[in-house]
Each structure stands twice: as structure tokens, then as C-alpha cells.
């Protein structure tokens, strides 16, 4: 090469970067870019605000229940009673219930904003071609984007879990058992999987449809169908929801009677359940509510038992992630420019 040196920096070298280097460079850029995206920051602040309110209110409730018990104990002790009843079972991690509802809505929106802008912004700015004119493969680019956004969402969920734990200690005045801590961590893990699903959904449509507005519209439609319409159909079809107070209760049937009645409509229940199970939101709610002990029947189970009982819902959360990731690679690797 006869080209004169285009640099006077003695230590300057240009070497083919490795796989890991490229992934981390793209992932870090994704994270920096996300925090400079006004729409993402607004949605993040909404989610953080709602989460803080929900967790603080929940922690205050826990604090009140602990205080009420302690007052009762004091009264009993003042009356000279020695047989103090134990504190009624308290499930402090159930304070996250409202957070689950907010995350199902605002969190999914946040993840979709990330997925949509991750590809669409590159297309609009013409930077996709700039990246691909460097020693970067298409699968490296997509993997880096997925990694960066997955880490970002994981950090977000980790922070929410930490805030919940601290709020329960500081405001609620309770400390969590190791089982409760693991259940809280697992709930945040499920929340991460849930957000990842909607991030990947938006990313997939942005890759598939080059017109940004059409990609966004498709994403929102699919989100509405899977996150709201399917669970709504499932709820509407639920026999027990036909009468206020419960259909089976109005007939005076106990749990066994209810099961016996439902057995006669097995095909109907299968269809209803099948519709609900198409929804990642339903899987997320079912496994999270079980882990947090909001569903009474799981309140006494350990985290391992809950995971065993709710494997179907865990698989239900993982399947769309695997499908959307594979579909995104298939689409992007076949594209040119």
C-alpha cells in the first residue's frame, strides 16, 4: 500500500474486532441510546413512578398490619394474658401485586418502544448501512441489539426488585425469609421474560416491515390481541364469571361440586383455557401471582413447588421468546441493506 499514513498516533492500530467486542460495543450503544430517547425516558419514569407508589402503599399496609398485631399483643399483655396468639400469616411480597398489573401494561409499552426504536431509528438515520459496511456481521448486529436491550430490561427489573425489598424493610418494617426473597427475585425474572417478549415482538415487526408506522401499528395490534383480547375472551367464557358473586357459589356448590360440574363441560373448558394460554400476559400473571402468593392456593408452597406447579406458564412465557428470536434472525439475515 502506498497510501501515506493517515495518522500520527504511534500506538494506533486497526485490528479485526472479535465477536465479544462487537457485541459489547453494540449493546453499550443501545443502552446509551435508550436513555437519550425521550419517549423511553417518559415511559420509564411512568413505570418507576407507578411502581414506587404501588410498593410504598403496599409496604405501608404491611407496616400497619404489623403495628396492629403489636398493639393487640400489647393490649393482651396489659390484660395479663400469657398465651399470646401468633401473628397471622403475613405475605409481604404480595405488595408487588399492583406492580404486576402496571408492568403488564406500561412495562410492555416500554419494551415495545425499545424494540421499535432499536431498528427503526437505525433505518431512518441510515446507520444500519454504516454499521454493516464495517467488519460486522448481521447476526452480530442483531445479537448486540438483543443483548443490550435485554441487559437494560434486566437492570430495570433488578432495580424494581431491590426497591421492593428495601421498601419492605424500611417502610414495612419486615424482613423477608430466604424463600420469599427467592420468590421475589423469580417474579422479577418472570417480569423480565414478559418484557423481553414485547421487546422482541416490536423488533420482529420493525425488521419485517420497513415502514416504521406500519410496523408500530402491527405491533400494537398484536399486543392488544394477545395481552388484552385473548385474556378477556377467556374471562368472558369462564362459567363462574357469568353471575356476580360466582355462578357456582350461586348454585351452592363447593369446590368438589364445581369440579364435577366443570367435568361435564370439559371441551368448553379446554377451549377457554386454550384461548387464555395464547396470551403471554395470562402466563405472566398466573406464574407471578402464584410466586407472590396472591393466589391463596400457592401461599404455602415453596418457590420450587410453585415453579413445578407452574411449569406450563414458564414454558408459555419462553415459547414466544424463542419463536420471536428465531423469526427475527431469519428475517434479518435474509435481508440486504
Amino acid at each position, binding site marked *: 500500500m502506498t497510501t501515506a499514513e493517515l495518522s500520527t498516533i504511534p500506538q*494506533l492500530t*486497526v485490528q479485526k474486532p472479535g465477536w465479544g467486542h462487537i457485541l459489547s460495543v453494540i449493546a453499550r450503544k443501545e443502552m446509551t441510546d435508550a436513555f437519550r430517547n425521550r419517549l423511553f425516558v417518559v415511559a420509564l419514569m411512568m413505570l418507576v413512578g407507578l411502581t414506587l407508589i404501588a410498593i410504598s402503599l403496599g409496604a405501608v399496609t404491611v407496616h400497619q398490619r404489623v403495628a396492629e398485631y403489636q398493639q393487640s399483643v400489647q393490649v393482651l399483655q396489659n390484660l395479663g394474658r400469657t398465651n399470646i396468639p401468633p401473628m397471622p400469616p403475613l405475605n409481604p411480597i404480595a405488595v408487588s401485586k399492583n406492580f404486576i398489573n402496571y408492568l403488564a401494561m406500561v412495562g410492555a409499552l416500554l419494551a415495545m418502544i425499545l424494540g421499535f426504536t432499536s431498528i427503526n431509528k437505525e433505518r431512518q438515520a441510515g446507520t444500519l448501512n454504516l454499521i454493516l*459496511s464495517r467488519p460486522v456481521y448481521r447476526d452480530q448486529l442483531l445479537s448486540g441489539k438483543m443483548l443490550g436491550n435485554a441487559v437494560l430490561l434486566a437492570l430495570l427489573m433488578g432495580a424494581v426488585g431491590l426497591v421492593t425489598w428495601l421498601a419492605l424493610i424500611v417502610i414495612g418494617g419486615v424482613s423477608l425469609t430466604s424463600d420469599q426473597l427467592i420468590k421475589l427475585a423469580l417474579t422479577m425474572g418472570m417480569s423480565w421474560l414478559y418484557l423481553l417478549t414485547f421487546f422482541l415482538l416490536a423488533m420482529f415487526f420493525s425488521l419485517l416491515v420497513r415502514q416504521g408506522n406500519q410496523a408500530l401499528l402491527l405491533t400494537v395490534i398484536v399486543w392488544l390481541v394477545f395481552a388484552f383480547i385473548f385474556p378477556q375472551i377467556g374471562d368472558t367464557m369462564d362459567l363462574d364469571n357469568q353471575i356476580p358473586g360466582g355462578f357456582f357459589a350461586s348454585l351452592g356448590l363447593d369446590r368438589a361440586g364445581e369440579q364435577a360440574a366443570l367435568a361435564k363441560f370439559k371441551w368448553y373448558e379446554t377451549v377457554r383455557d386454550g384461548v387464555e394460554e395464547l396470551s403471554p400476559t395470562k402466563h405472566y400473571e398466573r406464574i407471578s401471582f402464584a410466586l407472590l402468593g396472591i393466589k391463596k392456593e400457592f401461599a404455602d408452597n415453596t418457590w420450587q413447588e410453585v415453579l413445578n406447579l407452574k411449569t406450563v406458564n414458564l414454558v408459555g412465557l419462553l415459547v414466544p421468546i424463542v419463536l420471536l428470536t428465531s423469526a427475527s434472525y431469519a428475517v434479518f439475515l435474509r435481508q440486504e441493506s
Partner: protein
Amino acid sequence: MRMAIETFNLTRRYEDNVAVDNLTLRVPQGEIFGFLGHNGAGKTTTISMLTTLLLPTSGTAAIFGHDIRQENLQVRQHIGYVPENVRLYNDLTVAENLQFFAALSGVSAAPQRIIEVLELLGHPEWRGLRVGELSKGMRQRIGLAQALLHRPSILFLDEPASGLDPEGTRAISDLIVWLNEEFGITVFMNTHQLAEVTKLCTSIGIMNHGRLVMADTLKNVLARFPDHHSLEEIYLEVERQERSRA
């Protein structure tokens, strides 16, 4: 003489439409090559293939001897590419944008290199500005900066002066000539600005409906049409001849 670009029967089809039709071209190292043609003539498709962004339907091409299909990573290490209307990441600063592209190219000592390239362009003070705040001319120069970070041997510029005012056009042109003369960088540029081509380019190629209808040094092209006073007249004459031939 070492060839910077060599193509042989390079063809790209989009379904029934032939965007580039059997392009055979040789551009020696150190040239400033102006690639001319009407809109849709196949100029951008050619650049996209040479920069490995598009696969050819048939034919071959090599950049400094590296095949664009088989050795695309080596090709990418040789080239600097500035697309038309480059916008970069608006929310990041100039330095952050350049840092990102330097890291992707495997440039060591990137912070010093970024300062050096910005000084090369005469604007080290742009470092901390957000790209979204820059004018089109400034962005175009930052686009050029990102292409220079890894010391490329050849620059591919797609309409580098598109949409720029005369001052911006002049600044970019001066920069291209300086990079070529000072560092021997080969330049391959798509352009419609024929006046600039006359000032800048050492050789030109004219595309018409995907076919290369003329490629020669600027001196030879001007000598071939002694009755025409400008490159614009020559270009229009070539286009007219092609229309009548069709």
C-alpha cells in the same frame, strides 16, 4: 499500477429489473473517480455492492484484490463509506458517534484518533455537540470523519454534496482533494454535480440504465469531445446518444 477496484460483469437484478448490467470497470489506486448517471442509473446499487452491503446477482468485484463475496470482512477493513444524507445518531454527541464506529472497526486509541480526525477536518470543537444539533453540511463532514477513523485505503461517497449549499459543497470538495493528495486515498463518488466533478475527479464513468457507457480519465473524455465545452455538455451528449441507440 495497483487496482483499487476491479469489477467483471457485475450484475444486480431486482426481480425483472436489471439495476446494474454486466459492469466491468477498473479504478487504479489514487484516483478520484466520479460515477455519473441519471437517477436510477444503478450508481447507488454499484456502491452498495462494492461496499458489501448488497450481493451481486452475478459477476465479480474486488477491492484491492479482495473479493467482495468471499473476503467481505477484508474489503470492509479497506473501505470508508459515506451514504447519501448521512444522519448518524442524533441523540449522541459527535464524539460518542465516532467512538461507536471506531470501536466497530477495531481502532485502538480511539479517543486520540477521534480528536485527530476532527482536527484533520478542522473542527475539533464539534466533539461535544449532539449530532441532532448539527447542520446538514456539518453532519456530512462528520459522516466523512466516521469513514476516516480506521485509515481506509478507499472512500466510497454517495452524493457527498447532496443538498448542501455552495459553501458546504466547496468544503467537502476541498476535503476530498486534500485527502487524496495528502494521503493517497482512492475516492469513488456518485454524484450529479458535474461542475465539481470537473474540478475534483481524475477519471469518470457514466452509467445509463444499469450499463456503463463510458469510463476513462477526465482528460481523455474531454479530448474525445472537442466540440463540447463542458463536462455537462458531454454528459448530455452521451445520454442523447444512448437514448437514440435505445
